[in-house]
């Protein structure tokens, strides 16, 4: 556990930005711009080499001009050589957290290594929580704060991100925009001179704004300590991990068979399984899984019911379950009977529940509800969202619209799909059973009423059955990890 309090890094009441000029290409300017645009409501004190103005704001010539106690965070974009003095001056004003976007440290050769060592000592001396250096910034939606030298900001939500790569912070935030599933915090660890992934994730574990942690890591410096710390977090909140550099360079020289079989990836994977870390294969899968966890209850077991409007998608979903711990559970007798009453005789009479076009106005929500509420069903996947609105889109865009009754049917289709997405969210919350949605329209036609309604509600809509199943499988594994340990 770090001795530093990260509260002022993520929820500062005032921020000093160094290196601000009126040149819109400079990091200090961009950071000021992003903070203003994201709607940060605390005090902002841009500081530059000389007094000036940027974005209509006065730029101070020195940190000395900042009123005592008005800022508790500093964002540093200035050259390495002057930053120690700036940090001292800021600490004297009451600053307790710093984000060092500045480069010129460990990544920059022997002199940089020394500068980084001095920075670590100075952080300790001043009691300032230092993030970075050489990082892209920190985002915190509860404080409407986009303190970053790059874009984007993101919608508010319950995912907290810590990344050893700044680029992937941007990737995750872009995916947040794309899916509509928001984030609470995001931080690029940079060189992680003082604060590392485990420090951030431990803080997220205590953060009431966060439900799930999302981590990108490349290097593991102190593996055993990281294991112990992340396992303790996983006992409290789900932690999704994606690791870069996972493929092993090849067999290493080892005296033993066991050593020869111990690829970095195999050992890392075992560590994740033991610690309850939810390991995703790539950045997209990591985000989608975190987004599903952030917006759905965890499945209590492995039994999935697939509800679909046509056969092929259901087949794909069941195929995707091969090699996972999930199973397309045979329909319990009472559930079968209840569904049979709702559908014409040509329905599949099996799981996947292929409604075979037999659905009327309320059928889809009713069947999702029946399945989700059944005690022997742990998760529901609905495929076919948006198909009616897809037809409607062609009608709306064609030359006959709105005549010939097209306007009325288009509106009906779009209302129906929006209803399905809303019903999935509502049913999952009420029953405690996750109800996942998947359609390629989430990517192909995000304006389609189905995925658009999910997006507007901040609800994850996967772009294929396979991806939904993969997220669900990772959730089921974590759920099983918890159950096996009495958590």
């Amino acid at each position: 556990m770090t001795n530093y309090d990260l509260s002022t890094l993520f929820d500062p009441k005032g921020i000093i930005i160094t290196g601000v000029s009126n040149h819109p290409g400079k990091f200090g300017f961009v950071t000021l711009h992003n903070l203003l645009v994201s709607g940060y409501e605390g005090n902002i004190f841009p500081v530059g080499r000389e007094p000036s103005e940027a974005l209509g704001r006065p730029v101070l010539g020195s940190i000395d001009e900042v009123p005592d106690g008005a800022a508790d965070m500093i964002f540093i974009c200035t050259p390495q050589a002057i930053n120690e003095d700036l940090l001292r001056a800021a600490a004297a004003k009451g600053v307790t957290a710093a984000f060092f976007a500045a480069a010129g440290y460990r990544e920059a050769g022997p002199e940089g290594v020394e500068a980084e060592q001095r920075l670590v000592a100075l952080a300790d001396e001043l009691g300032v929580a230092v993030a970075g250096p050489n990082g892209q910034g920190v985002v915190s939606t509860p404080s409407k704060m986009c303190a970053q030298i790059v874009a984007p900001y993101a919608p508010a939500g319950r995912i907290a991100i810590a990344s050893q790569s700044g680029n992937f912070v941007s990737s995750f935030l872009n995916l947040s925009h794309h899916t509509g599933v928001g984030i609470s915090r995001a931080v690029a660890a940079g060189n992680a001179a003082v604060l590392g992934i485990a420090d951030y994730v431990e803080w997220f574990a205590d953060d009431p704004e966060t439900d799930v942690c999302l981590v990108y890591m490349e290097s593991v410096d102190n593996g055993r300590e990281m294991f112990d710390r992340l396992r303790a977090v996983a006992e409290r909140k789900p932690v999704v991990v994606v690791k870069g550099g996972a493929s092993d360079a090849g067999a290493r020289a080892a005296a033993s068979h066991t050593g020869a079989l111990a690829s970095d990836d195999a050992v890392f994977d075992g560590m994740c399984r033991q610690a309850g870390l939810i390991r995703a294969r790539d950045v997209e899968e990591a985000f989608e899984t975190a987004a599903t966890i952030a917006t759905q209850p965890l499945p209590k077991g492995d039994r999935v019911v697939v509800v679909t409007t046509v056969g092929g998608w259901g087949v794909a979903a069941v195929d995707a379950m091969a090699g996972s711990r999930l199973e397309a559970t045979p329909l319990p007798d009472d559930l079968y009977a209840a569904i049979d009453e709702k559908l014409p005789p040509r329905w599949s009479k099996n799981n996947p529940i292929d409604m075979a076009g037999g659905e009327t106005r309320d059928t889809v929500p009713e069947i999702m509800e029946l399945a989700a509420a059944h005690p022997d069903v742990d998760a529901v996947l609905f495929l076919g969202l948006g198909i009616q609105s897809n037809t409607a889109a062609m009608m709306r865009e064609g030359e006959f619209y709105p005549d010939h009754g097209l306007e009325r049917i288009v509106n009906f289709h779009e209302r129906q799909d929006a209803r399905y997405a809303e019903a999935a969210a509502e049913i999952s919350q009420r029953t405690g059973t996750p109800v996942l949605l998947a359609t390629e329209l989430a990517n192909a036609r995000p304006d389609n009423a189905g995925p658009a309604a999910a997006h507007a509600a901040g609800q994850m809509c996967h772009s294929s059955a396979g991806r939904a199943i993969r997220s669900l499988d990772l959730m089921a594994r974590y759920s099983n990890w918890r159950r096996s340990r009495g958590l």
Partner: protein
Amino acid sequence: MSITLSEAESRRVVAGHGVPVSPFVTGTSTDEVIAAANADSTVVYPVVAKLCGRAIAHKTERGLVKLRLADEAALRSACDDLFAAARPDDGDVEVLVSTMVDGNRELIAGLNDDPQFGLTIMLGVGGILAEAIRDVVFRLVPITEVDAGEMIDDLATQRLLEEFRGEPAVDRQALVEALVALAEVGEQEAGVRSIDLNPMILVDGKPVAVDALIEIDAAEASR
């Protein structure tokens, strides 16, 4: 620097922590070996006899493994040959005699001191094909019984663990206990760098190691 204990030494260490190994006795002369074999009712013919010593790395290549010895006369003759094959630079040697156990399925288990995570335990599909198949799972030592059970679940080749060619399904509890015992060796014995139990044969579904090698820090070995 590390050194590798002989198979006989390694077996004594792991067996002392409850790791199941095939029944065995050892001796430093033919008469001693025969007497020990006769005195231990768990060692039953046919047996295998091996010349063991810390400096002997490649027993099979040097012909120091005598298989399928059907009776005492065959064992006596094998022991004479093995002791005669010892070279001066082999150092202290002994002959290990163990019951030949039967089973079609082989697992591998072991410990390895990982540069990032410290001592780890491995379970895999084993035998001579282990490094080609690479169906292995790791955990960090120590492990609980729950961790050990999940290691078994995480193997890709689950069918090998089910009922197989007339042999019963793997005794999961026995395998869990073997893994926990193996991890305990790493926790309680000083200086363990690696352990190989390869193969562990499934005998009536229960794992039995028929070979064991422990690599330890040289500093610990000289104590």
